[in-house]
């Protein structure tokens, strides 16, 4: 249990993993005067928010590719602008593509102007989005703050619960009823109540299942949608950083370093060491031991608890909960190096700078999901497409372009095995794109497909799930990732979590990193 750690290095806090949450956490801790060391296994920081060259001269945000959840306040507090963070496109419109019909434009964010839907839907749309925005605003502090605990005597927990209830009550009778009615519902039924245009329903339902293990008919998908809206106070405006998501990570790193943090890359942690049942520090793969009374892990919960700490340091019930976490990714990432600007049929030229969706209807999404349930990839997958080089020419050689797409559903545990199916799925995805953008295939000079298995290997995320663990009711808020570790603290004194596996979850948001730093500071440990 105890290990003698002889060390020359000692810090107040060690952050394992230099993804965006790790960097945010490190920056806040460093700003409080703690000595902070960030240990990143990869050669560069960023984790799943990273820009990589996937073909000579072509760069792309290789895991996350859009920014829409990170709070403005955080960007300001950490002074990211001064550290090199710029947006190439601050307000990206969303367009849903249609085969053989006109695309449907949803405008910028969720309050944009809708064109291309039926007259009735166009009239109903503003009221629908306005209500969801009101609900999301009420949920905002709940979604972004530190979740309270149940069954404690602490007044802060009781107060937080009361505040939560009050915020929901203050919505007024009609909205509160609606919130309680829809929060456990599936997005299919909700959208069926409001709209009739299949393309519109497909586009709105898409955001509820993006990055999840759900189809539109899965209960809890409305929660996933509200979560996405609430994280950003109800206005989810998509943005694209200049230089890709990696540039945001670089700015976070520079901000953390400016605040006094030290960042080491190529430093993979082998294990977290304990003494007398509290954190003593970490031991690197190199064998070097580094001491710190506080270790904050941005790794996924399975990696942290079962890998770095070891189940022998934890209770059986806790290990059981961690090992039962649903953490298998279903989203693949496709990168195409293109010799020419792609032309999607019927798409306005300026819309190519925005986000394009291929999700023709809720039924099409549900059908795509059906395959995943049985360990197969979708025969007709759904896509979130960006062509980031339109707004940011630095990503590709002059006159050329990169296309970045998230494709669902591509289950982590493919029954046939990804080794033999990866090329098949790449071809299938390109076939679908070719139908929407004739001539695209001929302009491809290089294609890279990252399956959840690749994401697991390359980004060190168990299951290749970008939320680390599914965003579902039973893995949400006060019980995320598991009871006993849901407030960023863990059963082991001095060990904290700050990754996407914590509340509020994944997406490039940084709230988990900030909240974890807040908990470390509150506990007074240094």
């Amino acid at each position, binding site marked *: 249990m105890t290990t003698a750690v002889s060390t020359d290095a000692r810090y107040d806090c060690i952050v394992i993993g230099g993804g965006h949450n790790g960097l945010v956490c490190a920056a806040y801790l460093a700003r409080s005067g703690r000595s902070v060391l960030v240990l990143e296994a990869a050669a560069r920081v960023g984790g799943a928010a990273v820009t990589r060259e996937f073909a000579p001269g072509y760069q792309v945000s290789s895991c996350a590719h859009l920014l829409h959840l990170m709070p403005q306040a955080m960007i300001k507090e950490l002074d990211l602008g001064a550290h090199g963070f710029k947006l190439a496109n601050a307000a990206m419109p969303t367009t849903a593509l249609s085969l053989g019909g006109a695309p449907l434009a949803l405008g910028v964010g969720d309050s944009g102007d809708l064109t291309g839907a039926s007259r009735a839907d166009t009239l109903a749309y503003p009221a629908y989005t306005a209500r969801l925005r009101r609900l999301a605003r009420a949920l905002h502090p709940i979604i972004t703050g530190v979740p309270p605990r149940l069954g404690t005597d602490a007044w802060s927990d009781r107060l937080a619960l009361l505040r939560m209830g009050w915020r929901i009550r203050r919505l007024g009778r009609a909205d509160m009823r609606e919130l309680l009615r829809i929060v456990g519902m599936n997005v299919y039924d909700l959208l069926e109540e409001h709209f009739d245009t299949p393309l519109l329903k497909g586009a709105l339902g898409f955001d509820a299942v993006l990055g999840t293990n759900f189809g539109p008919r899965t209960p809890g998908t409305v929660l996933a949608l509200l979560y996405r809206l609430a994280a950003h106070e109800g206005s989810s405006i998509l943005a694209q950083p200049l230089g890709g998501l990696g540039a945001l990570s670089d700015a976070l790193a520079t901000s953390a370093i400016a605040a006094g943090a030290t960042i080491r890359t190529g430093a993979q942690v082998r294990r977290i060491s304990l003494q007398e049942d509290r954190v003593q520090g970490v031991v690197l793969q190199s064998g070097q031991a580094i001491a710190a009374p506080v270790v904050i892990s941005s790794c996924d919960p399975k990696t942290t608890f079962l890998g770095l700490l070891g189940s022998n340091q934890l209770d059986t019930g806790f*290990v059981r909960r961690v090992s039962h976490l649903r953490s298998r990714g279903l989203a693949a990432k496709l990168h195409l190096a293109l010799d020419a600007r792609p032309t999607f049929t019927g798409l306005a030229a300026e819309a190519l700078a925005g986000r394009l969706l291929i999700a023709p209807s809720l039924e099409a999404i549900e059908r795509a999901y059906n395959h995943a349930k049985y360990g197969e990839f979708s025969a007709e997958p759904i896509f979130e497409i960006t062509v980031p080089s339109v707004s940011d020419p630095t990503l590709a050689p002059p006159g050329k372009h990169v296309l970045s797409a998230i494709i669902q559903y591509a289950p982590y545990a493919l029954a046939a095995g990804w080794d033999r199916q990866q090329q098949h799925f790449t071809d299938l995805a390109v076939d679908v794109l070719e139908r929407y953008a004739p001539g695209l295939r001929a302009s491809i000079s290089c294609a890279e497909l990252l399956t959840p298995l690749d994401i697991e290997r390359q980004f060190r995320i168990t299951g290749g799930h970008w939320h680390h663990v599914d965003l579902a009711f039973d893995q949400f808020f006060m019980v995320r990732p598991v009871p006993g570790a849901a407030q960023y603290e863990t059963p082991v004194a001095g060990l904290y979590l700050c990754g996407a596996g914590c509340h509020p979850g994944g997406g490039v948001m940084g709230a988990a990193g900030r909240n974890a730093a807040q908990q470390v500071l509150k506990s007074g440990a240094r």
Partner: protein
Amino acid sequence: MSRAPHFLQPLLATPFHARARALSQLDSFIPWAGYTTVDVFSSVEQEYFAIRNSTTLYDLTPMVKYRIGGPGATGYLNRLVTRDVGKLKPNRVAYCVWCNDAGHLIDDGTIFRLGESEYRLCTAERQIDWLLDSAIGFDVEIAEVTEEIAALALQGPTSCATLKDYGMTGIEALKPFEIGRFAVGANEIMASRTGFTGDLGYELWMQPEQAENVWDGLMAAGSTRGIRAIGSMALNVARIEAGFILPNADFVSAEQTIYTERARSPLELGLEWLVDFKKGHFTGRRALLAEQRRGARRRLVGLDIDGNKPAHNALVYDDRTGKREIGSVSSAVWSPTCKRNIALAMLAAPHFKLGAEVWAEIYLNRELVWERRMVRARVVEKPFYAPERRRVTPPADH
């Protein structure tokens, strides 16, 4: 002959069943862990006195048995139970308990260290779910072997002499909690000096095919030493005298309680001697440390109760008025050997201190007329009965 479907024959017969059936005068069988076993053969009193005065045979085959092996077995068991298994030498047995994360008792049992990394765990209840969940991250193999091993308890002051006469030469050298291996004719028997009576005694472990032959041999060898087959009711009297706890009598497994406050910790059950906080992490350690810091809220104690009416299920009060309830009796019996009215009771702080006077509310049914008695009781030391012979090696040659 093909075995009947399980729904037609829900209880299994142990390998000793034919022998037990032949000796049973009352035909009183009860289910135990999926087997049918004898409650009482002829008379609880006679069977009890055989435990304390001669030698007894008790079929404990239904005891659930697990084989635990592999390079990580010692580390695994150390994380599972509260005791330091690292200190257990090969060919030794240890009584132990295991807890859930909250430090509440799941079950008690015995660990047999059969080799460097080969163990047998005997438990009252089936535990495979918990055992397998506990194995996450350990290089260990776990298999239930209950049906592969027949087991007999031979307990009482003449048990050692009976085994010697049976042909288990050298059994007298076996120390308490030690394991020995013996060959009698074609029968290969593993013997451990363990038991549930608090008396001199052994438990014998063998192949099911050898079971009847061993039974017959023991009955023949013990015929001049008053050997007698006993049922669970007589054993229960002996175990209360010995102060041993019984699942579902003195505690309910934390995996089965519906209300968390009804689960019990080893500290509450007076088993702190089994909890080793210095050995490293084990499941429940953090919760038990917190409980230790907080101080006990309740504790299982021995009661010596006035009169001779067993205080079955009695509520316990702090004074004769019976206004303030402080606990209840979980096991009670008139002890024939001690000639005392004894009980195990869970009492709230501060009433569990040694020597404290409390009052038990006893209900008596006298020809269908119920009488209620408030009877004085004192908190006393356990065990109530602990004869020196249970520890002496070699045992006296009766």
